[in-house]
């Protein structure tokens, strides 16, 4: 059994530096904020114009004028600020966001990211801020399942789906491993104990090696 979505998010949360500015994408990435204590002074940026997103608002306190980019009604932390979309994207495109954590369909061995166009027939594209974030943040991490439902690898030699940005992903957190994208291909830093090196190779497209100090990937049990 691999990590569930909350556990993947928990694992990524452990690597955030205190005091950093972080943008979370839809889906699993947004769960990361559940595992960051306020004492860490991490400011979550939302591209609709918030620096300092707090927990989702309780129904009573929910304000329809205060939403995040995923349309969740949210709260603000002390020190939070609100600004317009041009200022928000100047913040993003000017490189003032430390880490962007995104979901993905595919990541290539050279760090190319495909996460905005699933190729589903007839469905129109939805890019939102993904390209801006992937190109401009100081660091781009991806949270995703290692394999698709029909057992194809989401880590690939070359992306087949339309690209979001080239050479942008630095680290990938999956249900079975924590993987760095290096000039020498994928490098597994952590791997769950029930998966062997051989199985990891078989489940990964593109060249993957185990780091010499590769450790066991563990996450606590999390009640949802």
């Amino acid at each position: 059994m691999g990590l569930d979505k909350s556990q993947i998010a928990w694992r990524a949360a452990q690597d955030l530096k205190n005091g950093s500015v972080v943008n979370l994408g839809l889906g699993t990435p947004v769960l990361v904020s559940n595992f960051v204590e306020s004492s860490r002074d991490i400011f979550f940026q939302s591209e609709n114009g918030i620096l300092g997103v707090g927990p989702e608002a309780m129904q009573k306190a929910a304000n329809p004028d205060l939403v995040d980019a995923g349309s969740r009604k949210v709260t603000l932390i002390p020190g939070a600020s609100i600004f317009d979309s041009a200022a928000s994207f100047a913040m993003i495109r000017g490189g003032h966001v430390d880490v962007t954590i995104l979901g993905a369909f595919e990541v290539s061995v050279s760090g190319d990211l495909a996460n905005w166009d699933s190729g589903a027939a007839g469905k129109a594209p939805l890019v939102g801020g993904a390209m801006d974030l992937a190109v401009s943040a100081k660091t781009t991490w991806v949270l995703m399942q290692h394999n698709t439902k029909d057992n194809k690898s989401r880590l690939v030699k070359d992306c087949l789906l339309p690209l979001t940005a080239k050479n942008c992903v630095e680290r990938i957190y999956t249900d079975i491993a924590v993987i760095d994208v290096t000039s020498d291909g994928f490098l597994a830093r952590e791997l769950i104990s029930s998966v062997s090196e051989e199985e990891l190779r078989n489940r990964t497209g593109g060249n993957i090696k185990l780091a010499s100090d590769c450790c066991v990937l563990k996450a606590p049990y999390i009640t949802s």
Partner: protein
Amino acid sequence: MDKRHQSAEEVLKEIKDGSTIMISGFGEAGVPNTLLSQLKDLHPTNLTIVVNSVTRPHSLPHALIEANMVSKVITTSARGRGKGLSKFEEKLRDGEIELECLPQGTFSERIRASGAGIPAFFTPVGYGTKLGEGKETRNIQGKDCVLEEALKGDFALISANKADRFGNVNFNYTQMNFGPIMATACTTTIVEARQLLEEPLPHNHIQLPSVYVDYLIESEETDHGS
């Protein structure tokens, strides 16, 4: 000076067929529902709408499309919610509507540039992707970039919290989003606000200065406080 108007209709009837209309809003915050609802009744056609998202089938921007009023959509988020196709996606499939999909930062910067008198700018965002195809490219300071042109409109429809009679505007939290830049990028800006004030807004509460605002209408939305 008094930019307040009793009826949205008398202002919106200036919107002719073929106009380009910018619509504020991100998620459900800051969508000018009073203006859009009136515009739908007036039913100008062949419109180009510039709006962040048309993913919600039950939103008013999507309703304009369903009512066959729109010939082109410039947006960042076009995919309809759910597995089936939205009415917009059906029209797209049938070639009845044109779509220009943009990265959100490019979308907002093209609007901002227009309002600031910048005809075009280079950005690395979109280079080497489907959304950069056909655009002029240049390597600047070691970065491969695409050229993006300023985006201007005929009318901006904007939702706000408070406005004074001079046309100074204040927003509540993330209601702001695209409002201030869209107001700078259009020939005519119409703002709906929950409170239209006789007295001037305190100078330090003004987030959109009066010079960008032409008409004020009272919003039918509930006040969510400030």
